[in-house]
């Protein structure tokens, strides 16, 4: 066998430097996270103070048999105690100073530390959104791939119709329907809370699965899943409909690519062509959408948690807003933002793993 002497690689291939590039790109993306969080903290700070009403009004004891003057005095005292009598700029400075030192303050009502409240609420939200995400991805990818492979048939048409309907339905409507149908009529599943109140559960990490393992209490898992199914599915359905459409479009797009013909030319079976060549390349746009959709999933969890009385950050946020409990709202918003940013960071990393072409990016 002869070898031609001519060719040379245009750019020599160096795996080690490629890995360094990848790490550097991942690091650079990390740098953006504090900036985003700072911007968000400022926005929430301003938004809360723009809302009509103030926390001091409810603290001052409205509705009791106090005179108007007494209420006003109480209100002023409360404002003073909470630092709300300071100029806005001073309040903002104090807030930022606390934030930088990771002091998140206490609730205006009942003096619970915000960090403690979040520690109780975050695991529930993470459980709920992860479960919803899993359901949505499974449902969306499977139906999307089937619709694409059966393009033009009634299966395709039906899948797309259902997908469109499901992602057009608002969460609160879905949630209420789910509660009425599965909880009230059929009585298949519990509809309120994270765990039955009859169960004696003392949280360690507040992640039920982890606690069940730590405390060696496998009997926690069953009721936990039962409580999770309805809210998670409610949350997942609209996202699944959206994913179905994206997956279908992406798979159809890749099916038309030349390398799919190459794969068939190799004599590969159709399932290998789909698995190894079509799906892997279809993942890129899908993963991007997943990251962005996670944002709306978090938004949806606020509503879903409230509808299902499910203890999570969303419900904490809603209560906080209603009571004008500034520290709680600021903390909860920041926690949700951090969750969103981290998931999108994970998506970026996943993207780099899936598509080696952008590792240099």
């Amino acid at each position, binding site marked *: *066998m*002869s*070898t*031609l*002497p*001519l*060719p*040379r*690689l*245009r*750019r*020599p*291939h160096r*795996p080690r430097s490629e890995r360094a590039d990848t790490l550097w790109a991942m690091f650079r993306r990390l740098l953006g996270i504090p900036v985003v969080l700072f911007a968000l903290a400022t926005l929430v700070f301003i938004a809360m103070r723009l809302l009509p009403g103030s926390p001091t009004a409810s603290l001052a004891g409205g509705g009791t048999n106090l005179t108007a003057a007494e209420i006003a005095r109480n209100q002023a005292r409360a404002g003073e105690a909470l630092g709300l009598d300071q100029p806005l700029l001073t309040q903002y400075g104090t807030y930022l100073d606390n934030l930088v030192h990771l002091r998140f303050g206490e609730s205006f009502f009942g003096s619970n530390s915000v960090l403690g409240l979040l520690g109780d609420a975050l695991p529930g939200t993470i459980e709920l959104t992860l479960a919803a995400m899993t359901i949505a991805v499974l449902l969306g990818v499977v139906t999307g791939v089937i619709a694409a492979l059966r393009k033009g048939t009634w299966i395709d048409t039906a899948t797309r119709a259902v997908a469109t309907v499901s992602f057009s339905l608002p969460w609160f409507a879905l949630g209420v329907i789910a509660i009425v149908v599965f909880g009230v009529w059929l009585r298949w599943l519990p509809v309120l809370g994270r765990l039955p109140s009859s169960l004696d559960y003392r949280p360690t990490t507040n992640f039920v699965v982890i606690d069940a393992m730590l405390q060696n209490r496998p009997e926690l898992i069953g009721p936990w899943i039962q409580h999770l199914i309805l809210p998670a599915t409610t949350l997942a359905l609209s996202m699944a409909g959206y994913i179905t459409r994206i997956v279908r479009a992406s798979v159809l797009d890749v099916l038309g*690519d*030349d*390398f799919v*013909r*190459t*794969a*068939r*030319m*190799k*004599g*590969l*079976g159709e399932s*290998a062509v789909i698995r*190894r*060549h079509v799906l*892997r*390349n279809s993942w890129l746009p899908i993963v991007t959408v997943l990251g962005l959709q996670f944002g709306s999933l978090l938004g949806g969890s606020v509503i879903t948690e409230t509808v299902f009385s499910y203890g999570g950050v969303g419900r904490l946020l809603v209560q906080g807003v209603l009571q004008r409990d500034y520290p709680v709202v600021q903390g909860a918003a920041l926690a949700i933002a951090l969750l969103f940013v981290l998931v999108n960071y994970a998506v970026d990393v996943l993207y780099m793993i*899936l*598509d*080696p*072409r952008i590792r240099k990016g």
Partner: protein
Amino acid sequence: MVLEIRGLRVGFDVPSGRLPAVAGVDLTLRRGETLALVGESGSGKSALAMSLVGLNRDPRTHISGEVTFGGRNLAEASERELRSVRGKDIAVVFQDALAALNPLHRVGAQVTEMMRAHRRMPYGTAMDRAVELLGEVGIANPRASARALPHQLSGGMRQRVMIAMGLANDPAVLIADEPTTALDVTIQAQVLSVLRRASADHGTAVLLITHDLGVVAEVADRVAVMYAGRIVEQGSRDEVLFNPQHPYTIGLLGSVPPIDGPVADRLPAIPGSPLTGVDRPGGCAFAGRCAFAEDACTEQPELRHRHGEPGHLDACVLPDSVRRQARGAGPDPQPERPERPEQLEQLEQAAGTERDLVRNEKGRS
């Protein structure tokens, strides 16, 4: 004889009807030879090649006729049968290697996949063989290059990877579909010589699809000229290139600008455009563009030996004297044109003057 094609027809359903991309082709491919299938875009050469292994099978594509390979008719074979032939006995090298290679798989893995699709073999063994193949097609440092992704290689390297992949299972037939079109001229020459050497070393018959007569001159043993879905001329390379019989081939050869001659003001070209529609009039498909067409051309001419060496076939009913005249006239013999509408003439002239004016202005600035 490795591959024998008899009466192959390929039709595509389009909104206006069925497009006859290949309208009855007979062709044989012999062991170890390189047969160039020449034709302009839309002549049906790629449709023909893809239908040999059913890569264009689709509810809207209709393939009929005989493609005899190893005692089987591939035109009617089941998808499962075809799958066992594809990549193993008949492999394809595609045109645009960047698009034809999976962007997310390392090129070594893409070559091994070709082998492992047909043979049970450990990944390591397959990879060793892939590296060997990559070296064989002239890729420097093949062990490292096997770990590269397609976008990290140059265009010439990628096309070599395609060729290495094509040869991975030592196929009896390699279909090369315009393998050099996307490449620079210098790289083209390298890739062609890789292809030629590989086919010689492996005894592979190559069906080379191209519109580039330079490529034909360089690597082909035999040439088949395709026009509007039919073979219009076929013979050994030297016969077809130096003693062309069909007016279309003559025009095609006349359109190649000479490398050392005077540069023409305007490149010579065959006037008109090929039939591309669904409805095609009977008779010689080239008659409408042929300056020498006669009444006899309204009947479908048979592809058979008429002039030149034995084995030189053409599908033209015109007598030798006319052919000789055509060879002397170049691709666009204006004066011979009998019925040429005056309006068209005027339009062409107007366009010509305008173009000249533009050219002059450019020259001055």
